[in-house]
C-alpha cells in the first residue's frame, strides 16, 4: 500500500466489530455516528484510483473513485444512515453488525477496481445479508435464508468462473467495460453472476422469497443494496449489451404481473423491485449516455423510495405482526402517518410529477424513444401504469382502507411505530419529494452531463393521464383485485421442488436400496459367517479347550502333589534328590549290564 486511503467500508466494518464493546447508554448515538462518518467520508472522496494492495501475484485496487462509483457510493451510505435509524431500537447487536457488514460489502464492491476485490465484497454481501433473513427466527426464515444463500453461491461461482477465464485470456484483472459486441462464454458467465444479483428473470425468484421473509428492518437494507450493486456492475461492465434491453422490459412487466397476484405486501414490493430494476437493466442495455444516466438516477431514486415503502410495510409488520392484505385493512385510524409516508413512497415509485421517480424513470423511457425503440418506451410506460396500480393504489388501499376488518388482536396491536422509525420514514419521504422538485441535486451527480428536462407540459400531461386513468381502472375493477389468501408459484418452484425431490430420492429409493443391500449383506454375508463362527466356537470349546484344559489340569495336579512333598527341609530335599539320582543310576547300570 503506497499511501493509506480510508475506505468507507473499513469504517463500517470496524464500527460493526466494535459495536458489542459499546456501553448500552451510548449505543444509539454510536449507531448513528458510524453511518454518518461513512457518509462524510463518501462526501470527501476525490476522484482517482487509490488503495493499491499487492497480494501475492495480484495487484488489488480497493478505491476506484469516479463519477459512476461516486453516485452509487453516495446513495448507499445515505441509505445506511436511514436504515440504521429505522432499526435503531433493535436491541440485538448482531442484527446491526450483519446489516453494516452487508452495506460495507456493497460499498466495497462499488469502489473495487479489479475483479478479485469485486468478488470478495460480492460474497461478503451474500453471506452477511442472509443473517437479516435468519434473524426473523421463524422456521420459514431458516429455509428461505438457506435458499437465498444457495442461489447466491451459485451466482458467485458463475461470476468467479467467468472472471478467471476472462482475466486469464485478457491478462488483466481490471474491472472495466467488456467488449459487449463480441461476448465470449466467459463474458456470459460474468453476466449471469451480475444478472442473478440484479434478479433478472429467470434468475430472480430468490428476491421475493428472501425479502418477504426477512426481519422488518432487514428488508429495508436488502431492498437497497444487492440489486443496485448489480446495476452498478452492469453499468460499469455491460453498457450497451443489446440482450439486456428485452430482458429489462420483460423484468419490468414480470414484476407487475406477479404483483397483481401477491397477497403479502412485502412480497408485492419485492416483485416491484424486479419491475423497477427492469427499467435500469433496459437502460444499461440501451447504453447511451442518457440511458446510463437514467439507470443511475433511477437506482438513486429507487433506493430511497423502495426503502421508504419497505419501511412503511415493515412498520405495519412490526406493529401488527401481519403483512398479508387479507389479514389487514382499515388501519388509517391507527397508523395515519405511516399511511402518508407509504403513499409518498408509492407516488414516487409511480413517477408522479414532483416525486422522485418522475425525474429518473422518464430518462430511461425517453432514451428508449430516442433510440427509436418504440416498443421499449411503450412497454415501460405500460409497466409504470402497473406500478401505480399496485404500489400507489393496491398497497395503501388494502392495508389502510378496504372492506376487510383485521382480527381484534391485530387491530389492538396496530399503532404508530416507535419515533425513530417514523423519523426515518419522514426523512426518506422528504428526500423523495426534494429529488422530484429540485432536479439539479440528482442530475449533477450523474456520470454524464445531463441535457434533459423532465418538466415539459407534454411529459407532465402524458404521465398524469396514464396514472390517473390507471386509478380509474383500479377503482372500477376493485372487486377483481381483491387479495386472495394464496401464494403464487414462481421459478423457485424448480429448486424448491427439486430439493423436495432430492429429499424424496434420499428417503425412498436411496433408503430402500440401502435397506436392500443391508438385507442382502445379512443374508449372504452375515448369516453364513455367524454359522461358521458358531461351529468354530463349538470346536473351540469342546476340542481345543478340552485338550488344553486337560493338559493344564494334569500339570496342576502334578504340581499339587509335588508341593505336598516339599516341606522346605534342605536335607530332606537333598536326600530325596540324591535318592532319585541313585535310583536312576542303578536303573541305568542294571539296564546297560544286561
Amino acid at each position, binding site marked *: 500500500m503506497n499511501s493509506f486511503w480510508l475506505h468507507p467500508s473499513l469504517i463500517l466494518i470496524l464500527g460493526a466489530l466494535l459495536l458489542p464493546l459499546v456501553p448500552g447508554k451510548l449505543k444509539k448515538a454510536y449507531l448513528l455516528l458510524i453511518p454518518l462518518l461513512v457518509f462524510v467520508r463518501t462526501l470527501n472522496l476525490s476522484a482517482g484510483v487509490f488503495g493499491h494492495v499487492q497480494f501475492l501475484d495480484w495487484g488489488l485496487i480497493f478505491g476506484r473513485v469516479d463519477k459512476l462509483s461516486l453516485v452509487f457510493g453516495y446513495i448507499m451510505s445515505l441509505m445506511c444512515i436511514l436504515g440504521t435509524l429505522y432499526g435503531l431500537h433493535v436491541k440485538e447487536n448482531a442484527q446491526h453488525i450483519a446489516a453494516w457488514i452487508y452495506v460495507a460489502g456493497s460499498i466495497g464492491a462499488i469502489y473495487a477496481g479489479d475483479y478479485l476485490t469485486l468478488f470478495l465484497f460480492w460474497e461478503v454481501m451474500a453471506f452477511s445479508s442472509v443473517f437479516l433473513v435468519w434473524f426473523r427466527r421463524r422456521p420459514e426464515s431458516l429455509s428461505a435464508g438457506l435458499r437465498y444463500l444457495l442461489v447466491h453461491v451459485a451466482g458467485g461461482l458463475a461470476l468467479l468462473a467467468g472472471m478467471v477465464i476472462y482475466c486469464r485470456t485478457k491478462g488483466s484483472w481490471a474491472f472495466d467495460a467488456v467488449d459487449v459486441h463480441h461476448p465470449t462464454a466467459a463474458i456470459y458467465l460474468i453476466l449471469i453472476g451480475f444478472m442473478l444479483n440484479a434478479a433478472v428473470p429467470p434468475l430472480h425468484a430468490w428476491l421475493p422469497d428472501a425479502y418477504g421473509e426477512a426481519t422488518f428492518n432487514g428488508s429495508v437494507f436488502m431492498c437497497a443494496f444487492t440489486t443496485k450493486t448489480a446495476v452498478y456492475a452492469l453499468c460499469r461492465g455491460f453498457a450497451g449489451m443489446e440482450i439486456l434491453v428485452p430482458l429489462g422490459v420483460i423484468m419490468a412487466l414480470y414484476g407487475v404481473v406477479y404483483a397483481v*397476484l401477491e397477497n403479502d405486501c412485502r412480497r408485492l414490493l419485492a416483485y416491484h423491485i424486479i419491475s423497477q430494476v427492469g427499467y435500469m437493466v433496459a437502460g444499461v442495455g440501451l447504453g447511451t449516455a442518457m440511458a446510463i444516466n437514467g439507470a443511475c438516477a433511477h437506482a438513486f431514486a429507487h433506493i430511497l423510495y423502495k426503502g421508504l415503502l419497505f419501511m412503511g410495510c415493515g412498520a405495519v409488520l412490526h406493529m401488527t405482526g401481519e403483512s398479508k392484505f387479507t389479514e389487514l385493512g382499515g388501519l388509517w385510524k391507527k397508523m395515519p402517518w405511516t399511511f402518508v409516508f407509504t403513499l409518498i413512497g408509492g407516488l414516487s415509485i409511480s413517477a408522479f410529477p414532483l416525486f422522485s421517480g418522475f425525474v429518473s424513470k422518464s430518462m430511461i423511457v425517453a432514451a428508449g*424513444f430516442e433510440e427509436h425503440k418504440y416498443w421499449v418506451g411503450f412497454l415501460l*410506460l405500460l409497466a409504470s401504469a*402497473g406500478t401505480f396500480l399496485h404500489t400507489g393504489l393496491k398497497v395503501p388501499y388494502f392495508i389502510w382502507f378496504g372492506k376487510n376488518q383485521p382480527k381484534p388482536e391485530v387491530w389492538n396491536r396496530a399503532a404508530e411505530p416507535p419515533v425513530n422509525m417514523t423519523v426515518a420514514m419522514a426523512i426518506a419521504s422528504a428526500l423523495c419529494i426534494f429529488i422530484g422538485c429540485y432536479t439539479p441535486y440528482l442530475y449533477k451527480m450523474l456520470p454524464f452531463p445531463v441535457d434533459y428536462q423532465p418538466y415539459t407540459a*407534454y411529459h407532465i400531461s402524458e404521465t398524469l393521464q396514464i396514472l*390517473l386513468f390507471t386509478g*380509474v381502472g383500479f377503482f372500477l375493477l376493485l372487486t377483481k383485485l381483491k387479495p386472495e389468501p*394464496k401464494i403464487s408459484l414462481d421459478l423457485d418452484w424448480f429448486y424448491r421442488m427439486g430439493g423436495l425431490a432430492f429429499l424424496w430420492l434420499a428417503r425412498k429409493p436411496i433408503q430402500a436400496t440401502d435397506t436392500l443391500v443391508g438385507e442382502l449383506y445379512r443374508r449372504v454375508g452375515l448369516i453364513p459367517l455367524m454359522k461358521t463362527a458358531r461351529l468354530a466356537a463349538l470346536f473351540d470349546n469342546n476340542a481345543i479347550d478340552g485338550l488344553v484344559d486337560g493338559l493344564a489340569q494334569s500339570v496342576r495336579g502334578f504340581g499339587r502333589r509335588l508341593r505336598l512333598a516339599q516341606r522346605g527341609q534342605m536335607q530332606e530335599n537333598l536326600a530325596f534328590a540324591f535318592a532319585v539320582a541313585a535310583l536312576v543310576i542303578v536303573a541305568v547300570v542294571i539296564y546297560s549290564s544286561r
Partner: protein
Amino acid sequence: MKLVQLIEFLRHRLKTVVRICFGLLALLILLDAVLVDKEHAHTHLERLPAFWSIFGFLGCVLIIIASKWFGHAGIMTREDYYDE
C-alpha cells in the same frame, strides 16, 4: 390527531371527492387537447386527443385481467403448498 380527522372528513364526503376527481380528469383531458404542445411526441398515435388516458386505462385493465387469468391458470395455489 388532525390527520385522522382530515381522512374522516374526506371519507364522509366520498361522493363529492369522487365528483371532484372526475372533474379533474375531464379538465386534464381538455387541457391536453387544447393547450399541450405535441410537437415532440414520438409517434403520430400520441397526437390523438386523450391518447395517454386511453393507454393508461386500457393498460390497467389489461394488466389486471391478464395477470388474474395467468394466476388462475394454475400459478396461484394454497398457502401450504410447499409444506410437503
